[in-house]
């Protein structure tokens, strides 16, 4: 029996929930609005909310002055590259753990997860030193590899939980019919695994895009992605609110949109299947 809810009660819920939702969202909304103001309006006292002269000037200035496109490209390259590389390495591993489990599968999974718990700062200098020795400090390649490694445990885990949901009988049937391992993976498993792989791709792209320890410490001018670009906006440029807002909006907009698609995967991906 569904609980009967009065319209009045529903209206009250709606009002409270929307008020709280808007309050939480407000900093983002305010940043987006401010990015369309002039610098004078951005610090107007009292603040102007919607009724100002909307302008795109800040976007043009940020782009022109700081070569925004290069940082964007670095972000896309590093986040995309590390995610794709991670998936390529993780799919076979997750596949074998899900379909050919052995006694040690569970231990291996937990051990992989434990590498994710290693505090980055504890290994900062060794990585820094290795990067200098290999000449890959401040290079996109180096950062791509590091981000791939820190997200690899999550990728393996997510794929594993998705693969686990594929019924093993289907694979056995294919094997009985004489499908080779290669064909089994290519024609039977892949089509069923695509949604899981896509979700994993999405969430890990977001995590890599927002990663802000290694990106700040291992890059300088060349390979800096958007996280480092924004960090360079701390004072004095940060006091130009409109430009700061424009730069911030450009850095978070793509991920906000992707993020809305990945709400469900977020729970699965970040709790390692412990909450469903």
């Amino acid at each position, binding site marked *: 029996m569904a609980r009967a809810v009065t319209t009045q009660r529903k209206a009250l819920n709606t009002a409270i929930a929307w008020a709280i939702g808007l309050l939480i969202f407000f*900093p983002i909304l305010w940043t987006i609005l401010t990015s369309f103001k002039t610098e004078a309006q951005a610090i107007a006292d009292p603040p102007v909310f919607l009724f100002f002269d909307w302008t795109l000037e800040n976007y043009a200035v940020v782009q022109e002055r700081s070569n925004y496109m290069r940082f964007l490209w670095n972000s896309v390259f590093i986040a995309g590259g590390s995610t794709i590389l991670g998936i390529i390495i993780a799919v076979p591993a997750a596949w074998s753990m899900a*379909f050919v489990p052995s006694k040690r599968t569970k231990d291996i999974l937990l051990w992989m997860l434990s*590498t994710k718990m290693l505090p980055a*700062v504890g290994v900062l*200098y060794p990585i820094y030193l290795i990067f200098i020795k290999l000449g890959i400090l401040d290079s996109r390649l180096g950062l791509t590899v590091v981000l791939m490694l820190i997200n690899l445990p999550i990728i393996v885990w997510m794929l594993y939980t998705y693969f686990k949901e594929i019924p093993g009988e289907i694979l056995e049937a294919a094997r009985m019919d004489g499908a080779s391992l290669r064909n089994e993976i290519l024609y039977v498993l892949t089509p069923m695994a695509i949604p899981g792989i896509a979700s994993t791709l999405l969430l890990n792209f977001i995590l890599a895009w927002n990663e802000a320890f290694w990106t700040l410490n291992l890059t300088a001018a060349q390979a800096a992605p958007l996280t480092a670009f924004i960090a360079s906006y701390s004072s004095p440029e940060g006091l130009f609110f409109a430009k700061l807002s424009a730069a911030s909006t450009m850095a978070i907009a793509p991920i906000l949109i992707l993020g809305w698609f990945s709400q469900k995967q977020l*729970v699965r991906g*970040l*709790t390692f299947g412990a909450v469903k």
Partner: protein
Amino acid sequence: MATQQSRSAARLMMAPAVILLLGWMLVPLIMTLWFSFRKYLPLRGGDQGWVGLENYARFISSSSFWPAVQTTLIIVGGVLIITVAFGIVLALLLDQPMWGQGVVRILVIAPFFVMPTVSALVWKNMFMDPVNGILAHLWKFFGAEPVQWLSQESLQSIVMIVSWQWLPFATLILLTAVQSLDSEQLEAAEMDGAPFLKRFWFIILPHLSRAITIVILIQTIFLLSIFAEIFVTTGGAFGTRTLTYLIFQRVLESQNVGLGSAGGVYAIILANIVALFLMRIVGKNLDT
């Protein structure tokens, strides 16, 4: 049944991931351990040999160690309390029937997708700036003196910024748990006349306990290593130097690698203690 052939194939397929993660874990870890026993100042004489446990002793006895531990505990504890408490309230609220539920959910979750440097900088300048920030305007509107957030109330400010970032995570996971609650049991309790607080305490909270534990453990691991939020806002000044930040300063800013590595080993041990509990829960879940 898996055949011998598929077993060796499986091992082969696992190998790249296992070898990479093993290398990623062991190589830097061994290097950190090695450095932690040496006097190593890259800019002032380089590696000056074995010093035993001196770095470990010096790291703990330095005047900035205990304040850093305290700062870390306040930030982690503060953010945990705020996110879990508000997360439960929000999760229960979002589970109620309402109009535009999907949109509200998106509004609440959005901060999680904002990169740390952006949220830190937006809060620092546009909200917490003592002259032009929104909060300063708000304080003035009510006739109060604007607060120098990041210099005078620095710890509270950082806790606020980080809580804003992590509230969505707690809410989303707790909401997932709330939605799996058996509504018939709740209805029965309601019909028997149990007031909301009793229903919350005896039915809802026990049901959420596992999800709460998981939120606490996962957030602790991430919160112990927050970096960008402090790097961008205060740079470790005004009593906001956490253990992570202290180690970062020792290693990269003052280039005292031996000392910083000893600190790193402490941080690794601390994180592992938390991780152990998390692993137990996750491991148990794997069996079912």
